[in-house]
């Protein structure tokens, strides 16, 4: 035992450990809280550390880790729940964004027509056979929706309410051949009414019939509601003239109108429950 403690190995060990402890005490009182040896080693092997981290990043997709199936399963459930929460937030965000878009487009209309009473509504159903001709909204008589209330998107006419339930209503769009509304062309001031046919409706167009042969309406003209009849307020944008064609049945012409809004893509609309000059509600079709 005495030989062990007097051996050169033990003496070297004692000196080295004493030096390390001295460095430890010095580090404890130093400003940087590190020993000179650690600083030197960090500086010398710093590039190696960075290189090894770079290699590790590159190999991370191949890394082999053994984890218990229980912890993996728990982690999986947690991530799935997080995904579900995020998905719901995303849906709410998209809905809010669409509503905001609608309100932004409608803001100018409200400013110009302070008497307009709006009610926002979501499209909750479409007729499976003719998706552009009618759809169902999630507002009804409980919220003062009545038959013949105009339905708009921004400042564009979409259609009118044709039936009302307490919490739902059905909208007949401008692509329904049974729909008609008094309109005029903005530049030429020629008046008429908007309607459509089955063939045009399938293509997503309306028509402005019974135009004079010498009509001044040309492609690119803009068509808005005229307010005649009291069902729709004046100057709701209907669409743009795509072309002017001759009727086959008589000598008049008709204009093919491209609606100002894509009816098939609507998710939110506004119902005009009241406006200045509105006629009292009458049953649909009269």
């Amino acid at each position, binding site marked *: 035992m005495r030989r*062990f403690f007097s051996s050169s190995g033990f003496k070297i060990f004692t000196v080295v450990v004493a030096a390390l402890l001295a460095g430890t005490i010095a580090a404890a009182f130093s400003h940087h809280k590190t020993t000179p040896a650690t600083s030197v080693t960090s500086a010398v092997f710093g590039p190696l550390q960075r290189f090894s981290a770079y290699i590790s990043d590159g190999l991370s997709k191949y890394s082999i*880790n053994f984890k218990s199936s229980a912890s993996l399963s728990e982690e999986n459930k947690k991530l799935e729940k997080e995904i579900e929460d995020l998905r719901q937030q995303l849906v709410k965000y998209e809905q809010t964004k669409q509503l905001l878009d609608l309100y932004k487009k409608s803001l100018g209309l409200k400013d110009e027509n302070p008497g307009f009473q709006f009610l926002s509504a979501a499209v909750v159903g479409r007729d499976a056979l003719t998706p552009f001709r009618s759809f169902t909204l999630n507002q009804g008589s409980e919220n003062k929706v009545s038959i013949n209330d105009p339905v708009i998107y921004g400042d564009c006419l979409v259609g009118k309410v044709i039936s009302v339930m307490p919490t739902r209503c059905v909208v007949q769009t401008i692509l329904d051949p049974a729909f008609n509304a008094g309109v005029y062309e903005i530049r030429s001031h020629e008046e008429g009414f908007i309607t459509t046919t089955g063939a045009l409706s399938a293509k997503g167009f309306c028509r402005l019939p019974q135009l004079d042969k010498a009509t001044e309406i040309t492609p690119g003209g803009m068509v808005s509601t005229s307010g005649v009849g009291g069902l729709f307020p004046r100057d709701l944008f209907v669409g743009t003239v795509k072309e002017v064609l001759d009727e086959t049945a008589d000598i008049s012409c008709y204009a093919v109108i491209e609606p100002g809004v894509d009816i098939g893509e609507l998710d939110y609309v506004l119902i005009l429950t009241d406006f200045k000059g509105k006629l009292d509600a009458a049953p649909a079709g009269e």
Partner: protein
Amino acid sequence: MLLRIENKKIYARYAIYAVLIIITAVLQNTKGLFPEIFGVRAMLLVSAVVCISMHEREVSGIFIGLFAGFLWDAYAGGIFNFNAIMLTTIGFVCGALVGSIMRNNVVTALLLTAGSCLFYNTSYWFKEYIFNFTKSPGDSRAVFNPYSGAWASYLTFYLPACIITVILMPACYFLVRLIRNKTKQN
């Protein structure tokens, strides 16, 4: 001339040991480079220091342990030279034991590795979890306050790390033996 060749073999051996220690430090301390088993990493540097010290005895063991400890401290950002002191001690003790009372074979290597890992991990765990003093507001005295869950972490992390290190040690042992045989003096 013969002496210079023998010296070259010794220098080459220690150069290879140094490279081995560097590679082991990189593998151990860089996340993703070496597989983790159930979240536990092997302490490759401890087994490397033990294996080299067993073959090279206590004085070489001291400096190998010192070098490995400095590297580990640099990676871990450890202050106070903890790893350097621990690995120097492990290198010295393993080298001295093999030099005096133990044989140099894989069984003793397993025993020494297990003992060194337990010594290192228990000291580290004690330093991190048990040896903790906190001051309450308004009280100038620091009170001994071990972290809760200390035993759970010892049983689920530190002890399994020892086991995994011991399991992987034979590869390191035979590699060091190969290096020594290839660079042995005649």
